[in-house]
């Protein structure tokens, strides 16, 4: 237990690990303070733009600074065991003891770096993006709160604390999706996100109960250390725990079957989509699986499920993305698809590869979202100037924007190339590693699926770029002159992320690639965290084949994949760039197979028919038939029965004295008889 004040003010001495967390409390306190100040500001100085604009980003950048300091400290000490900082006892009941504990190890530091780093950039971007919104202060308070909870999620040293962050980010997601709550649909989308997430949270909860029942503790360190001895390898318990944890992950990270909320979540402001629904929160599921790597490594069945669902989602979402016209929807499905890759990675046991893709994805997807935000921002202004209410998100209303928005165009191309997996951009290294491991671990079907999804990724991203930036402008002659590049406060973040999207992958360069220095920084960095899981897997006979299913080494396939991606990009570009699109208002909905994809395989409709409506009918039935009908009906019948008996009894009361006399005497006789006989 560490003094709360101490955790905020000083370096906490941690003897066991040799690494001393720097101001651990302050990392959390800064975003929280930002939330409180901005939250009060939403009521007190509603119109001020300056205070929230300074406080919000400053809090996050400050936190980022401390995280960097911690990173440096950890790099120096490179502890083998995590440093756990206990702030206070949260719940101690019987043999259950849960502390508000923060865990500092290589994985959490990496996640903290990603979270605070990307958040800082997006906060700065938001200063420009949200400048004209009346809910400026409220926006920053929510965003700060989100960072607070996200940090709790990645720093928590036990399952319940992670769960606090887990649900907390869900709450912030809910609030930010429905940020423009006056639009009923947007608010609905927030609600949908929350409820779907809750289904996942249910899994998380039950998994915690199971863990506590079998381990008697919920602390990461103890659970993971005890797991190989406590649980049977591939036994029912560990399989159940991991499947339930994965259910939680599918909710938060938008995997089949719970992915449906994420596309709708695009109702929120675009920086929110970038931060929450692309870079950080949705990767929490991947983090959870990676964090519980030991448990997953012990449950091969669960691993297969995770990998299969990951790969399936990757392909499934990619198909939908090819036929969407809303720029943010394309990116949303792209995110679902990329998250699928991450789950594929952690599913096959390549935890580091999953985290690697998580990181690079955070860079390039944040970049792409912010870029799309810049486009929407510009479109919104232009349409606003001419008082038209066309959809600024619809790519059929864009076209040819590269001349008006050159910086956005350039940075977004970098992001596109990165996500397509083309050398030497970040996505190449991370995605290649995943696909390579999938193949070499022997998951042939998943390997093919992941390759297909990679091809589709290149295609739909190129389509997005072409529709938005190339070809003729379809915004309309009146609005076109008003389209212009976004201010520096917005494009500088784009530039930063673009740089990261290029160099982000260089921390992990496979030695097989000819002519390049082999870099193994990430694997080395995460080794202390991932080692136990890897140990379990090798112990039970998981070995790399060192050869892809069709033969050929890693270098061959890396070259093939980058060349294929490049070809797909070029082909798609050439196929689409001359095609004529009509503005959204004049175009018809696609038909045939494209129509099915455009309508997202009708999954929402399916859920509505098969789950939601029958449930609502059942619930109404419970109320009307069981409650009002059966129970109250029975009671009312009893009341009426009583009344009936009373009525029958009242017939005796004829008003005739003779009758009364007779009954009276009869009564006397009966009583006498009872007494005497």
């Amino acid at each position, binding site marked *: 237990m560490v003094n709360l004040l101490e955790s905020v003010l000083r370096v906490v001495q941690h003897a066991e690990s040799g690494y001393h967390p720097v101001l651990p409390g302050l990392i959390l306190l800064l975003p929280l303070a930002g939330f409180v100040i901005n939250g009060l500001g*939403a*009521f007190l100085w509603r119109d001020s733009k300056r205070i929230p604009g300074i406080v919000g980003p400053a809090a996050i950048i400050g936190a980022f600074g401390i995280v960097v300091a911690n990173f440096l400290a950890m790099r120096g000490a490179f502890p083998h065991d995590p440093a756990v900082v206990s702030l*206070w*006892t*949260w*719940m*101690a*009941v*019987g*043999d*259950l003891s849960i502390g508000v504990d923060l865990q500092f190890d290589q994985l959490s530091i990496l996640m903290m770096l990603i979270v605070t780093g990307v958040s800082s950039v997006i906060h700065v971007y938001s200063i420009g993006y949200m400048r004209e919104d009346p809910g400026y202060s409220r926006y920053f308070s929510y965003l700060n709160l989100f960072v607070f909870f996200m940090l709790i999620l990645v720093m928590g040293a036990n399952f*319940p604390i992670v*769960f*606090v962050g*887990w*649900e*907390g980010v869900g*709450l912030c997601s*809910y609030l930010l999706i*429905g940020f423009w*709550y*006056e*639009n*009923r649909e947007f*608010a*609905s989308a*927030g*609600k949908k996100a*929350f*409820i779907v997430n*809750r*289904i996942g*949270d*249910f899994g998380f*909860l*039950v998994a*915690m*109960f*199971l863990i*506590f*029942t079998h381990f008697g503790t919920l602390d990461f360190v103890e659970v993971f250390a005890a797991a190989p001895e406590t649980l049977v390898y591939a036994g029912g318990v560990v399989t159940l725990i991991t499947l339930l944890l994965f259910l939680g992950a599918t909710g938060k990270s938008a995997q089949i079957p719970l992915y449906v909320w994420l596309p709708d979540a695009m109702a929120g402001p675009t920086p929110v989509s970038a931060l929450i629904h692309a870079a950080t929160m949705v990767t929490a599921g991947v983090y959870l699986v990676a964090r519980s790597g030991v448990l997953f490594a012990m449950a091969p069945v669960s691993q297969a499920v995770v990998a299969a669902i990951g790969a399936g989602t990757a392909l499934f979402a990619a198909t939908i993305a090819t036929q969407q016209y809303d720029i943010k929807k394309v990116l949303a499905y792209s995110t679902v698809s990329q998250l699928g890759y991450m789950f594929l990675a952690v599913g096959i046991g390549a935890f580091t590869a999953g985290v690697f893709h998580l990181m690079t994805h955070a860079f390039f997807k944040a970049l792409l979202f912010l870029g799309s935000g810049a486009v929407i921002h510009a479109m919104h202004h232009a349409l606003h100037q001419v008082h038209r209410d066309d959809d600024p998100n619809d790519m059929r209303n864009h076209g040819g924007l590269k001349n008006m928005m050159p910086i956005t165009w350039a940075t977004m191309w970098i992001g596109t190339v990165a996500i397509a997996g083309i050398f030497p951009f970040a996505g190449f290294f991370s995605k290649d590693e995943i696909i390579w491991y999938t193949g070499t671990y022997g998951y042939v079907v998943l390997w093919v699926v992941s390759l297909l999804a990679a091809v589709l990724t290149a295609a739909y991203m190129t389509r997005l770029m072409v529709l938005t930036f190339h070809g003729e402008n379809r915004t309309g002659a009146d609005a076109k002159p008003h389209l212009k590049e976004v201010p520096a406060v917005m494009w500088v973040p784009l530039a930063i992320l673009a740089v990261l999207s290029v160099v982000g992958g260089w921390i992990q360069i496979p030695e097989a690639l000819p002519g390049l220095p082999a870099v193994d920084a990430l694997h080395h960095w995460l080794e202390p965290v991932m080692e136990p899981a890897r140990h379990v897997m090798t112990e039970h006979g998981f070995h790399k084949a060192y050869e892809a299913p069709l033969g050929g080494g890693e270098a061959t396939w890396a070259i093939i994949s980058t060349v294929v991606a490049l070809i797909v990009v070029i082909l798609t570009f050439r196929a689409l760039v001359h095609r004529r699109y009509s503005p959204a208002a004049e175009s018809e909905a696609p038909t045939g197979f494209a129509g099915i994809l455009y309508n997202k395989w009708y999954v929402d409709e399916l859920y509505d028919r098969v789950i939601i409506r029958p449930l*609502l009918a*059942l*619930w*109404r039935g*419970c*109320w009307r038939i*069981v*409650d009002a009908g059966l*129970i*109250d009906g029975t*009671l009312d019948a009893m009341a009426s029965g009583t009344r009936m008996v009373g009525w029958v009894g009242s017939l005796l009361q004829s008003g005739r004295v003779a009758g009364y006399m007779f009954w009276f005497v009869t009564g006397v006789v009966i009583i006498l008889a009872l007494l005497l006989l």
Partner: protein
Amino acid sequence: MDNFFESHWVLSLLIILPLAGSVACLAAREELARHVAFGTSVIAFLISLPLFWTFRSGTAAIQNYVSVPWIEAWGIGYTVGIDGISLLMVLLTTFVTPLAILGSYTYIQRNQRAYYAMLLLLLAAMIGVFVALDLFLFFLFWEIMLIPMYFIIGVWGGKRRIYAAVKFFLFTAIGSLLMLVAILVMVYLYYRQFGIITFAYNDLVQLPIARDLQFVLFAAFALAFAIKVPLFPVHTWLPDAHVEAPTAGSVILAGVLLKMGTYGFLRFALPFFSHAATSPAVIGTVMVLSLIGIIYGAWVAAVQPDAKKLVAYTSIAHLGFVMMGLFALTTQGIQGGILQMVNHGISTGALFLLIGMVYERRHTRMIEDFGGIAKVMPVFAASFLLVALSSIGLPGTNGFIGEFLILIGTFQKYPVVAFIAATGVIFAAAYMLPMVQRMLYGEIDREENRALSDITLRERVVLAPALIMIVLIGVYPQPFLSRTAASVDALIDQVELRAVAAPVVAGASDLRFDRMPILGADE
């Protein structure tokens, strides 16, 4: 005043003070009655508050114990005292009541004196129920409580108030009559065994009762408490009573009165009839009914058009959790259950206060009559959201702590039950968020709502304590948990011990009522 709060009389003062205040309300001028009532309830709260610290939490012993003979011939005494469980209940009562009173300041327009006198009478009776350690005294307070509540619903309620009040009264009275019979049987059995007539809790709790007889007596107690809780299927009085009652009535009903059922199980039914209460049949029944309450309550809540009725059904779900935790008979389950009783009192009380506030402005409780009022009532909206999240059980709010402990406690013994109950967290979101969304968000599509004023300073003062407690318990529940720990552990030990020790068959003459000394000739 040195050790006043550790002294014996502080509990009695807590009962007498509201009674005096009640009389003062009747005597006061019409427009002053509310101030008298509020002042009295605040003083009662201030008197009770130090108990939280003076209470020695390491021991399961009864504290602040007073026992004075009252009707000596029948062994009835004025016996009061608190342990960790009743401590929290008393504090909850004194905490909620001032909020309820302050919340009715403008709502109640007619017969104010009588109204506030009733509320204070109710306060005295509620505290009495929680501190009484004599079954006669307990039953007395239990029944006294009915009367003010009946009038509060029946006189100051909504359109169908008479129906609701009568339904409330009949349900509760039927249950408590059976309980009275069971109490008398216990007193008689005690007399048979030890030759002393006594109603004292500490005596009766030692009474060995034959196993088959335990089931009968347990059923009588359980019915009385189950109606109060309320468990499915005896819950239908609750939505009606809540909907028709004025705000303060709903707040106290949800905040405190429902807890009497669960408290009764904990204090009486479990230790008295441990064998019956721990038998698979009873546990199974309670678990199933709790599950039905959790799931079914949530389902029905989700389709309610009336905001107040919705919240009423959520109470059924929440109390289902509590019952499940109590009957799991694990430390976590019971402690979580007790904390959840407090949480539910605060959160649901606050929800009723909030709905009462918009009702005062718009005179409707239908969800569809609102929409978009976050725009015009931002403070209201923020408060409503926080309270709703607490009701959903979001981590960081009090609701999570209770549900988590209950579920984890239950899971260790009955994993399947806890598994099914955990789906309640999904349904909780499914009933609460649509209401939040439809009331607060969207465009303002009704002209009447455009001119709504945000909550006033008084209303903020009413809500603030509840909101603070919601977060405080969510972040740092340990002080509350540690105060109940010893009592709960002792209770579990006692129940387990008595469950095994119960005599197998009844003595031949155990149930001959004609030998009852009060009824017939002593032999």
